[in-house]
């Protein structure tokens, strides 16, 4: 199965060239277009209860579609917001994804729900996070461009800009500066990540877009 991420970083899509035997699982409504010989089956996202939990806590879709092809065909997967997509190959390791980031994965990957802790919730990074583990490739995306950082000690990330991080990285919420500057700097709360490990960040945040748009609505 050949895959390519096109139109990075503003309107990224995953272009998949499929052959018989290839399988790819994607969140509901991810398909933009596909060859006529690609078929899809709708499945609960991990089973009934887990799907509900993922929908409520992780902003993931209740259902996922499993795609397969009878011959040679193509499939174009996209996300609802404009932005970047990254592909990671899991080899038994795991990755935590922020709510809404998951796009697609190969069948050997498990999608689980993980408790992110109150710290994460205070930092408005969500009470839960999606834990992807197993073997195979996963695709995740964000509003904005995605860039990775290998962090060693402490690294500060603005709320709304975190996409994914390795389990070896711990999260603590803190203020950007003192009380006065946190309030007036516009930065407010930040996530203090402690490594070692890799962190994926997004260059834009939906919260900023919403705030800007709201300011213009009168």
């Amino acid at each position, binding site marked *: 199965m050949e895959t390519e991420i096109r139109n990075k970083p503003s309107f990224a*899509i995953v272009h998949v060239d499929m052959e018989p035997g290839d399988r790819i699982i994607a969140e509901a*409504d991810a398909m*933009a277009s596909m060859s006529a010989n690609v078929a899809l*089956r709708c499945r609960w996202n991990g089973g009934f209860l887990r799907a509900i939990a993922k929908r409520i806590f992780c902003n993931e879709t209740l*259902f996922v579609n499993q795609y397969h092809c009878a011959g040679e065909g193509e499939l174009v997967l*996209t996300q609802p*917001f*404009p932005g970047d997509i990254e592909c990671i190959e899991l080899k038994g390791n795991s990755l935590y994804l922020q709510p809404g980031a998951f796009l697609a994965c190969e069948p050997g990957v498990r999608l689980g729900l993980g408790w992110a802790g109150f710290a994460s919730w205070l930092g408005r990074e969500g009470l839960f996070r999606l834990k992807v583990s197993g073997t195979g490739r996963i695709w995740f995306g964000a509003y904005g461009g995605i860039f990775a950082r290998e962090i060693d000690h402490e690294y500060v990330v603005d709320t709304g800009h975190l996409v994914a991080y390795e389990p070896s990285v711990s999260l603590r919420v803190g203020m950007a500066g003192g009380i006065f500057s946190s309030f007036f700097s516009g930065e407010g709360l930040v996530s203090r990540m402690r490594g070692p490990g890799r962190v994926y960040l997004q260059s834009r945040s939906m919260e900023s877009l919403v705030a800007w*748009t709201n300011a213009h609505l009168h």
Partner: protein
Amino acid sequence: MTQYEILARPAASVVKMTLQPGESMTCESGAMIAMSSEITVETSARKRGAGGLKRALKRLVAGENFFLNHFVAGAPNQTLIIGPGLLGDIVHHPLTGGTLVVQGSSWMASSTDIDIDATWQGLGKAIFSGEGVFWVKCSGTGDLFLNSFGAIYTVDVDGEYVVDTGHIVAFEDTLQFRIAKAGKSLLGSLLGGEGLVCRFHGRGRLYCQSHNPPNFGKLLGPKLKTR
């Protein structure tokens, strides 16, 4: 065909055209960004020279602006730069006597000789084809510029191809199409979020957009202030 260049694809696209005397380009209202001084603009509620008020009203219903701007060059090598209102891509389609069916909001500009007909109801009867989507039929000879929210990718269909209806930008009318369910079961299709898709078959060119404006709107909308 008019000399043109599409810049800043796929997110901030603009078209830079060079018009020669007598060449005329019809653009949607508000598309002009910059132009040389020897270009004259005529704004009309109808196609330049022909079309009539009825056609214009039909365009209004189609989601296109009531007024069309016709840009005519009065001197050699006049530059005209046009672009859409939102972030997105632009693609050029050369029409050589055939017909291209364009999604209402994706038509941006065309050579003035191209006939624009907003009465085409082929997909319109299917309410499933998307929230308030209308279609514009363009025929004749000349250049056509289409815009989108998302990157535009071209599929030269030879056989059969499936597109989620919100992702269709334009297609040649040599293609047959039908609205169908995405998967084998209707329930599966609906729950899987794909719902109904458009199955094209035959031979012809199809332009698709990578992103779907209503889906982005559904994410953003609930977070905005209510008025």
